[in-house]
């Protein structure tokens, strides 16, 4: 990373008459867009930049020097699983033969692409202990929403037992139980899915308050569609009573949703399906090493236990049961939503329903290629070491830093550890300051001020890819910052000093929002 700010906008490099592209000129010009009625054409040309190729290349290369990625250095951003993104996966995903496939080309012409899709579905099902996966969701939050839709579709399909009070039907289960320690996306996804959020309290040790859960189920069990859980939870702690919890919710007729954000901790040791979860999503961009790309594209496959497969969205990729009388494996098929004639009366869910659909095509296929390549590279013998090594790294950090940083909950953590700021709060140095000072030392900051259970949360997730040397150096710097907080608190409070820019004025940005170049030149 470069310490100097590269500040130009591409628009500021534009000069009329320059161009950065070349297109063939030998085409049939019998028709031009001038044929279109004027009422259908834009009045003025879009003010896009006019630049030569080298200017564009330098501009974006210079911009990249003001960015920090996993390849630049340690990125202990809790809850985000910033593991190494293997280079070979990029090579595979960029293969021209995949790039050139149209999603609507006949299934018999793209069996290789479907093979990856199908095999990844199967691999995830094995790793999760579930029956079937859809790869359609484009991100973790998209997966959460899809999973909740599947749950609601299931409830809508269930007929109530005879003798139930009049007017009751399973589709009216609209409450979702969410621990107060959950990621913000859980309640947000529930709301988008038309569900009402009911918070389940946490105990002092950060785990679910099972007594409170029981009380809630007693009160409203017949209205509960599902409970959403992350395990290990957002504090990095394994919920020891998970089996009891899933049993209680099932007994009340609700389903258990597993937020796969923290799945990395469990690879090799434990599967969501075996803990009693019915529906889950996996972040391929966390657990399965696909790059975060500055915020996407990700992929959030959703898996379900046996009996819920029919509620997964379309399109699907399936392999019909092979005909034993014929040689060779059966061809993979693309199954689109049932082709019933559309009418307003047709329900979306239920037996006669159209089925769910959450994207135009198959999802972020390019991301799936990388995840499948990763699974094949690891193989059965290495996949099982992911959780243990990630967990070892986190516990090693926990034990090494708890003298200077306040460890609110003793005991084993899983893949990440949460501190509540510095032990010594008298200097006034906050978690924010520590995070900013880390940037000066060439590290990305941990996740800060989440989970909300503590005031000064500092959440560190090292992943299994980091060496002891890297972690020791980080621990050393964390201790050094704690010492600086005592000896020279201003140095820490005014950090960062060695980055392209200093701390930014968030208030100014929000008060008078300037979100385009056009607005900025007006101002």
């Amino acid at each position, binding site marked *: 990373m470069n310490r100097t*700010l590269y500040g130009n906008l591409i628009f500021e490099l534009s000069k009329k008459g320059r161009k950065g592209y070349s297109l063939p000129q030998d085409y049939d010009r019998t028709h031009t867009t001038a044929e279109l009625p004027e009422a259908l054409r834009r009045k003025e040309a879009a003010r896009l930049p006019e630049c030569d190729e080298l200017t564009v290349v330098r501009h974006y290369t210079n911009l990249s020097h003001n960015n920090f990625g996993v390849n630049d250095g340690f990125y202990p951003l809790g809850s985000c699983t910033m593991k190494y993104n293997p280079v070979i996966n990029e090579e595979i995903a960029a293969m021209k033969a995949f790039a*050139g496939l*149209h*999603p609507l080309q006949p299934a018999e012409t793209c069996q290789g692409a479907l093979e990856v899709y199908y095999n990844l579905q199967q691999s995830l099902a094995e790793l999760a202990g579930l029956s079937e996966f859809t790869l359609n969701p484009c991100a973790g939050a998209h997966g959460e929403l899809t999973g909740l839709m599947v749950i609601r579709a299931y409830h809508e399909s269930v007929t109530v037992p005879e003798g139930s009070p009049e007017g009751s039907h399973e589709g009216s289960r609209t409450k979702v139980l969410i621990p107060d320690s959950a990621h913000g996306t859980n309640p947000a996804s529930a709301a988008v899915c038309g569900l009402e959020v009911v918070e389940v309290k946490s105990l002092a040790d950060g785990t679910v308050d099972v007594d409170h859960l029981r009380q809630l189920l007693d009160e409203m069990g017949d209205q509960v569609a599902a409970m959403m859980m992350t395990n290990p939870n957002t504090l990095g702690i394994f919920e020891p009573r998970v*089996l009891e919890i899933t049993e209680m919710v099932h007994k009340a007729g609700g389903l258990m949703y597993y937020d796969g954000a923290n799945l990395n901790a469990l690879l090799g040791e434990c599967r969501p399906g075996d803990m009693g979860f019915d529906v889950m999503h996996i972040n391929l961009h966390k657990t399965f090493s696909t790059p975060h790309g500055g915020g996407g594209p990700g992929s959030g496959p959703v898996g379900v236990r046996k009996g819920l497969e029919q509620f997964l969205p379309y399109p699907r990729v399936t392999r019909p049961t092979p005909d034993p009388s014929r040689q060779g494996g059966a061809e993979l098929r693309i199954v689109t939503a049932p082709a019933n004639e559309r009418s307003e009366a047709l329900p979306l869910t239920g037996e006669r329903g159209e089925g769910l659909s959450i994207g135009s095509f198959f999802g972020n296929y390019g991301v799936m290629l990388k995840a499948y390549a990763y699974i094949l590279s690891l193989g059965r013998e290495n996949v099982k070491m992911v959780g243990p090594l990630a967990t070892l790294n986190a516990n090693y950090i926990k034990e090494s830093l708890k003298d200077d940083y306040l460890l609110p909950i003793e005991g084993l953590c899983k893949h990440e550890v949460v501190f509540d700021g510095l032990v010594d709060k008298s200097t006034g140095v906050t978690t924010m300051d520590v995070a900013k000072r880390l940037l000066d030392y060439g590290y990305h900051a941990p996740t800060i001020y989440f989970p909300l259970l503590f005031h000064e949360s500092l959440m560190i997730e090292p992943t299994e890819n980091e060496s002891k040397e890297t972690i020791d150096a980080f621990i050393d710097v964390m201790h050094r910052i704690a010492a600086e907080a005592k000896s020279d608190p201003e140095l820490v409070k005014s950090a960062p000093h060695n980055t392209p*820019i200093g701390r930014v004025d968030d208030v100014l940005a929000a008060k008078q929002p300037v979100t385009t170049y056009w607005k900025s030149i007006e101002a």
Partner: protein
Amino acid sequence: MSTPSQKLSTPLPTREGQGGGSAFKYFPHTEEDLQEMLKATGVKSVHDLFADVPEAARFKREYNLPDALSETDLRLFFEQLTHPLNAQQLICFAGAGCYDHYAPSVVQNIIERSEFLTSYTPYQAEISQGTLHYIFEYQSMIAELTGMDISNASMYDGATATAEAMMMAWGNAKKATRVLISETLDPKVRRVVDTYAHFHGVPLQLIPAKNGTLDREALDKELAEGGVAGVIVQQPNYYGIVEDYTGIADAVHEQKGIFVVNANPSDLAILKTPGEWGADVAVGEGQSLGIPMTFGGPGVGFMACTEKLMRKLPGRIVGQTLDNRGQRAFVLTLQAREQHIRRQKATSNICSNQSLMALYVTIYLSIMGKEGLREVAEMSYAGAHSLRDKLLATGKFKDTFPGQPFFNEFCLDYDGDLDALLTEATECGYLAGVKVDTVPEGSSSVKRPVGPSAPEGPSEGSHTLMLAVTEQRTPEEIDELVEIIKEHKEEEARA
């Protein structure tokens, strides 16, 4: 043609170990490291770190997965999968939401830079100016292309962006009873909007089409009844037709509703912008801006709106500000709308964007620039119109929607067995378009298009073919496709 499945039935290569003992290339822990770290942690083995996992939930067997592949074997495996029999590279005349446009070499090269590729969402502005800066440029370009005031940092895809717009309209309305959606919207997108609306509790009402365009009489009738939170249309519509939406915005605004235009950004070099149509929200799929098809994803959804709706816009937004050294800097802003602050009261559950694809689009638009995007549009338009002339001249096709202006995609009714024609084209290396399902003549409903070819796909007897042409299609390819179809005609005649 031999069946690719036979080619693929070869099992994965299996090797004992990776060479060099038990070490694995992505795990740096030596035996010595492990012992030291375990000691510091106070446990004997890594499995003891899971002592808190109940016995009954422990995974005790081996995963049923293949053994680890070396990089060499991994390459061989994917080469086998991409053998021409298994991943046929067809000359693409299909569109229906995914287009084979020119992808400049520069773009792919730059987006692979690890500083962009391996970074997270730009929370730490001080070391994320690269990402924040290009998102600001992206937002500026999308706002300019669509003619809107403000764009978010991008969405998953065009379909979910449209669904988000539907929910935005619903959330914005005070006393609405429904959202209206045009039947000329891509049915795949409509299905996604349907799904979201069903669970979000938004009554959707379909406004039928007439000769391939939105039935204005039907729309006016619905609007007159009141209670409309929003109207969603597509431009060019699913069938490639450029519709005239004059007057709709005013009528919707009279109801205090929101007018949503789903647009193809590539065509916006020429076509009237959503802003010029009076739209409050513009959404769409950005794949047509040079993003490779890659079997349908990743693409990128865009979403832009008027300043008035700024605080209701879902997704990430980057704004300009100053740092404490007085430098212009960029930062994630207006976060009070978002899930990590508002939880269930957020405008959406979206907590990321499709950042790298937004970068793709930004570099693409920088390379193509003002003139390049227009040239792409002109070439695509010219190619599509030329192909249509030639296909009509074969005498085997009829105009599906007579007299309607179109851009680079169009529908024709084939006078014969369309499945046989498409199969033959595929055998010649051409993806000759997408079959569109039909309904009996005289029905008020439009033809219902269906997705990928499959047993559950278009019903037998459909005659409508939808073709798309981009600047990638050469005059020779256009002529060859026409020849294939002509020859096919002769074969049919002989039979």
